[in-house]
Structures are given as structure tokens and as C-alpha cells.
């Protein structure tokens, strides 16, 4: 077992994976990667009965946490919210004694139907992806984690197959960069998507 700079935990949430093309391709690109633990929340907890202790142990064992999910109603699918509510306990993840996540990296990998033109002032969604992800950003920061810019695959409903293959490779390279610490965190801009940098 090779040693990596960072061990990555991907928390994957897609309630209707059988209907998904994009997330399926992205999942396949990284789920067998060494140094990556791919954790499908809907598969492990179909009844939403999240095992808090087990989840916390997983978090402790990894150095970077990635949420991978389809962008639903400007937010995550339900189980990721449930996961946050239950696992990020006061006194463990945040609060005076809660420092278990301190210093870990936190990234979002998401897919959206709309493209960049929809996520801007005057666009269909009026706000940028960064702005719409503020709740997650604040959550990460409150827990002392380093917030990474979102990695987003857009036009997900109409994306061509070859583009999707490209996006999946890109996702894999992104995780490799985190794992092997080749991503220059200090060179990242304040906003935008990380796709262009990683």
C-alpha cells in the first residue's frame, strides 16, 4: 500500500443513480482510485439511518473530504443534508472542543443542468455557483476546514459523450492533485470553478 500525501474521502450522494449519466461516469472515474475512499451514502444508508460514529471515524481517517452530488434545488440531495446534521456534531466538528476536522481540505464536485451563462447576474439562476454554495462553504469553514472552489460539470443533461469522458478524466486528475499535493492551494483565486485550475 503506497503512502500518499493525502487520503481522500468522497461522500457520494445520488438518490436515483439508475437515471444518472453524468454522476455515473464521474463515479466510475474515481471510485477505484488508490488513496480514495468512495462512500455512496444512499447505498449504505437507504433508510437514512446514518451511523454517526462510523462516519466520524471515516472522517478522522482521511485528510480531504469531497462531496460529490447532483445540484438539486440549489443544494445537495437530502441525505447529504441529513449527514451534515447528524455527523458534524457540536463538540466534535465545531464548537470550543470540536476540532476533529481542523486543517482538512473540503471540496465540492457537482453536476448542474444549466451552464455558466445560467449561473450569473441576469442569468437563469441569477447567482454564481460559488454564491449558491455559500452554505456548504460556511459549514466547511466553521469546522476549520480549507474550502476549495467547486468542481462543476455543467450542461449535464445535454453533455456529449466525449465531453463527459473528458470531464471524468479531469475529475480524476483533480483528485490525484489533492492526493499527491501537487495543487498549489495558495495560487487559487477567490471565486470561479476549480475546473480551470486543476
Amino acid at each position: 500500500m503506497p503512502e500518499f500525501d493525502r487520503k481522500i474521502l468522497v461522500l457520494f450522494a445520488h438518490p436515483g443513480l439508475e437515471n444518472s449519466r453524468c454522476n455515473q461516469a464521474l463515479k466510475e472515474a474515481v471510485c477505484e482510485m488508490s488513496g480514495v475512499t468512495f462512500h455512496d451514502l444512499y447505498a449504505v444508508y437507504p433508510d437514512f439511518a446514518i451511523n454517526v460514529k462510523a462516519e466520524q471515524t471515516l472522517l478522522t481517517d482521511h485528510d480531504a473530504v469531497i462531496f460529490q452530488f447532483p445540484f438539486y434545488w440549489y443544494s445537495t440531495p437530502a441525505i447529504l443534508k441529513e449527514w451534515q446534521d447528524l455527523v458534524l456534531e457540536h463538540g466534535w466538528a465545531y464548537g470550543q472542543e470540536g476540532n476533529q476536522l481542523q486543517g482538512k481540505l473540503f471540496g465540492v464536485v457537482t453536476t448542474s443542468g444549466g451552464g455558466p451563462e445560467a449561473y450569473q447576474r441576469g442569468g437563469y439562476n441569477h447567482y454564481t455557483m460559488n454564491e449558491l454554495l455559500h452554505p456548504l462553504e460556511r459549514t466547511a469553514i466553521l469546522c476549520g476546514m480549507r474550502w476549495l472552489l467547486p468542481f462543476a460539470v455543467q450542461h449535464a443533461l445535454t453533455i456529449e459523450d466525449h465531453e463527459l469522458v473528458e470531464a471524468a478524466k479531469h475529475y480524476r486528475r483533480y483528485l490525484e492533485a489533492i492526493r499527491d499535493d501537487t495543487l498549489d492551494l495558495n495560487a487559487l483565486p477567490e471565486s470561479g470553478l476549480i475546473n480551470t485550475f486543476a
Partner: protein
Amino acid sequence: MLDLTSVLPLAIANADPDDGFLLHATVYLAAAVLAVPFAKRLGLGSVLGYIIAGVVIGPYVLGLVGAEGQSVMHAAEFGVVMMLFVVGLELRPAMLWRLRGPILGLGGAQVICTVLIIAGITMALGMSWQGGLAIGMCLSLSSTAIVLQSLNEKGLTRSRGGQASFSVLLFQDIAVIPMLAIMPFLAMVPEDDAAKALHTPHWQKAVLIIGVVAGIVLAGRYLTRPIFRYIAATQIREMFTAIALLLVIGVALLTQSVGLSPALGTFLAGVVLAESEFRHELEGNIEPFKGLLLGVFFIAVGATIDFPFLLKHPLGIAGIVIGLVVIKFVILFILGKVFHIGRDQNWLFSFALAQGGEFAFVLFSFAGTVDVLPIEVTTPLTLAVALSMMMTPLLLIIHERIVAPLMQNADAERHADDIDEENPIIIAGFGSFGNIIGRFLQANNIGTTVLDTDPEHIETLRKIGLKVYYGDASRIDLLHAAGADKARMLIVAVDEKEKANQIVSVAKKHFPNLIVYARALDYEHGANLFEYRADKWRHQNVGSALELGVDVLSYLGWSPFRAWRASRRFSRHEDETFKKLLKFREDDKAFFDKARQSREEIEKIFMADAEFKENPDHAWDNTSLKEEVSSQQEEQA
């Protein structure tokens, strides 16, 4: 002391019809059946009902029973022995230990104060100190039978006042033994035979007593369980009744033979068995005997009231009765204050114990035989004791109707003390189904009382620390003993349909406030359970079959979340289908024979399933959204 030799012959010798046993039994039972429900309806309680019945059939009214009243009383005192056994069963050793303060402190103070004050009063009235002391001892005792029965009937045994009363009564029952020992010495005839008999073999007796007590404790701990299990395994119910009676009578005989009070002996045996899994079953078996014998005892109290004497000296007797009750009440009330019983509970405590007890009859007659008190003194006092016993239910009614409501307004928060320790959930049947729900509730800190009829089973479960009791939950008395009147819910999880129906029906009939949930073995059974008014039932297999179904779909490649949702949807569909079927059954009951009906039902089920298939779960199917977005893009292009 209670003479047991009169008990057994009564049952055996009187079986000869020539003896008038059947006639007497008929008179007693008829009197009870007529008087007790009537008295209860009037709000007087069963005790007063029995006593009034006794007065009516007694020698001075109808004259149906006469001189043998005294011997019947002796026999009936065995009811007190059984009562103390049952009381013991309900009292775990740990709880008895917790009560040691009130028993010794409050009980001791009550007996000593009452003896001294009554002795003082009688001496002031011209009695010798020996006579005064003897009267004081006789009158210091209260009636265990009447008080416990009345408090139990009113559901007050676990209240603070009830507990204090119980402590004092227990001390009094112990105090009878030294009183009987002291009595002969008060006769001023030092070489009296009775005194000698009690006097000489002191140390031998002590050794014997210790031996017997140790024997009861050890046998109760280690011997009874294998015996009970052996008996239970035979599945013959009357054998259990037999062994329960054998146990009580045997212990009573044994303790009496060494000069201990049999009531005390059986009480001890009860306490030792309080932790046993057979506790509820024992209680259920002894209960009817206890109740009837106590009833006969109360009837005998009524029948022995000497009306001619009362009519000759009405004022004198009334004065003694009132004086007795008032003196005892005042002493109890002051002690209650000293021992911080709390206001309304102190009233209950003082009203409850302000009478003479059944042991006074024994002590008075004993005092007569050893020449401590002349018959001119014992006759009016015995009568006064009987009348004061008759007053107790009336005093308790006064407390309940007048004093308690006043007090309750005064300090409402006091009632928090009355919380009992019964478990909120009773589970009937601890087989494959019951044990899962039982463990689930235990694991979530919900107290459960478990009843099961398989002794092997119980043994294993008790080894892992669960509270499981042996007994058939369709018996009202057993449900009662398990606390069904105080519990919130009964879960019926027995393996036989008929038994389950029976339990549901009995529980709903006799404990209307108890919620009953049940496990149905199939849908037919579920329909039955509804007819018997179960509040909720679950098909025993649907849950686990659907869980395995989720595993199957997942294995076939469905995402577990989709499979899970499908199972939930199907479960809902199943409930709805059953409701439809139930309605269909009710509507068509008259038209279809059984076989036809079940064929139609299967058809209905399949039709409903087809409907289910036509309405799948569309969740997260983005086909329509994709089409819309694509067509928009084409338009733009």
C-alpha cells in the same frame, strides 16, 4: 396466636355433608355474593360489605351461623397468612431494606407509645399495672387484614401513607410474638404452666427459629426454582395451584411449630420469592384463596359482634370504641408529623390504622386463659375492637371524600410521591417475535414486564438478565399481578392465534385503559385481532419479508435506496389492500362461503398488485426535463 390446627381440620373434617359444611359454605358464600357487590356499589368497599354480611347472618339477626363463629374466625385468619405471603411477593428484599427505617422507627414508636398511653389511661381508671399493660398491648395492634385490603382496593398501597401503614403493620405482626411471651408473666403467678412452657427452652428455641428462617431463605433461593420449573414443565395448571398452597401452608406450619407467627413466616417466604420468575404465577394462584378466606374472616368478625351485650351497654361500648379510635388516631397523627409523612398522607395513615386488630382477639382470649384479665374486661373490649374494625372502612371513606380533596387543594404537588414502579409495557410471549421487541424496548430503556409459559425459555432469558415471569397472560389475575391496571401498554406476541385472541379480549375487557398492540400470524388473524379490539397489529412476516426483498433487489443491481423505497411503498400498498379486503369481507359476509370468499380475496389482492405496478416511483427520473432542455436548445440554434 393463630391456631393452624383448626384450619386443616376445617377443610377436611367439614367435608362431611352431615356436618353442615355445605350448608354453612352456602350461607357464607351467598351472604358474600349478596352483600359485597351491594356495599361496593354504595362506595363502602368490600370489607364493610363482608362485615355487614356477617352481622346479618350472625346469631343475633338471621341466626344462620351461630356458636362456631369463633372457630371460623380462627380458620379464616389463614387468609391473613396468605395475604402476608402475597404482600411479601410484591416486596423485593431491596425495597424491604429501604423500609427498615419506617418499620423499626415508626412501627416501634407506635407500638410503645400506644401501649404506654393506653396502660396509663386504664390504670387511671383503676386497673392494675399488669392489666393496663395487657390491655395496652392488645389495643396497640391494628388490623392488617382490614387496612391492607381497604388500601389495596383504593389503590393506595404504594402511596406514602400506604407505605407507612404497611411498615407499622409489619412491626405489629412481629411484636405479637414478644407480647404473647410477656402475657403470662403479667399474671403474677410466677410458676404458671404457660409461662414455664414459654420460658424454659429459650436458647434451643432461638436456635430453632434461626434455623427455620435460614431454611426458608435458602430453600426459597435455591430449591424453589428447579421445583417450580419441574412443575411448570408438566403444563398442568392445577399442579401449580397445589404447589403454591403447599408452599404457603407448609411454611405457616413450620414457622408456627417453632413459635413464630405463621403470617411472619409466609411473609418472609414471599419476600424471598419476590425475585423469582414465578412470582406473578404464585400470586395469581394464591390470590383467590386469600381473597375468599379474608372475606370469611371479615364475615366472622361481623358474626361475632355481641349484640345483646352491645344493647345492654350501648353508651359504655360507644365510649370505648370512640375513645380507642380517637386515642390511636391522635398518637398516629403525632408520630406521622414526627416522621414527616406529609400532610394529606398523614391523615390517610392515621385514619387507616386507628382501629383494633384481629390479633387483639387472640391476645384477649390468651390473657383470659392465663388469668391476666377477667372476662368482664375482655368481653366489652373484644366487642369494641370488632366495632372499631368495622369503622375503618367508614373512616377511610371520610378520608377519601372529605379530607383528601381538602388536602389535595392545599398541597397538590405532594402527589408526585405516589408514582409506582410498575413497568409501562407488558409483553405476553417471549418467543421469536416477543424477544426482539422486548430487547428493542429494553435497549432503549423502556421498562418491560415479560410473561411467558415456557420454563426453559425463561431460564435462559433470566440468565442474560431480563425480567421474565412465568405465567399465562390470558388470566386476569396474572395480568393484574403484572401491573396491567397501571401499565400503559400490553404487547401480545404469543405464538398461538387462539391464545393471542384470548389475551387481547381479556385485556381489553378488564383493563379498558390499557392499549393493546398485537402480532398477527397472518391477515386472517389480524382481522380477528381487530374484532377483539386490539389497538394495533402487525403481520409478523411482512416486515422481514420486505427487508429480505430489499436485499434481493439490491443483489439484482437495484440501488439500495430505490429498493428500500420500493419496499416502503409496497408496505403501504399492503396495508391499503388489507383495509379494502376487510371492508369487502364486512360487506359480503352474508353472500360468500369461506372458500369462495378467500378465492375472491386472492383475486382482489392480485388486482390491487397490478394497480401498484402501474404507478411506479418516478423519483429522480429526469427524462422529461432532458427532453425539455434539448428542445429549447434546438429552438435557440
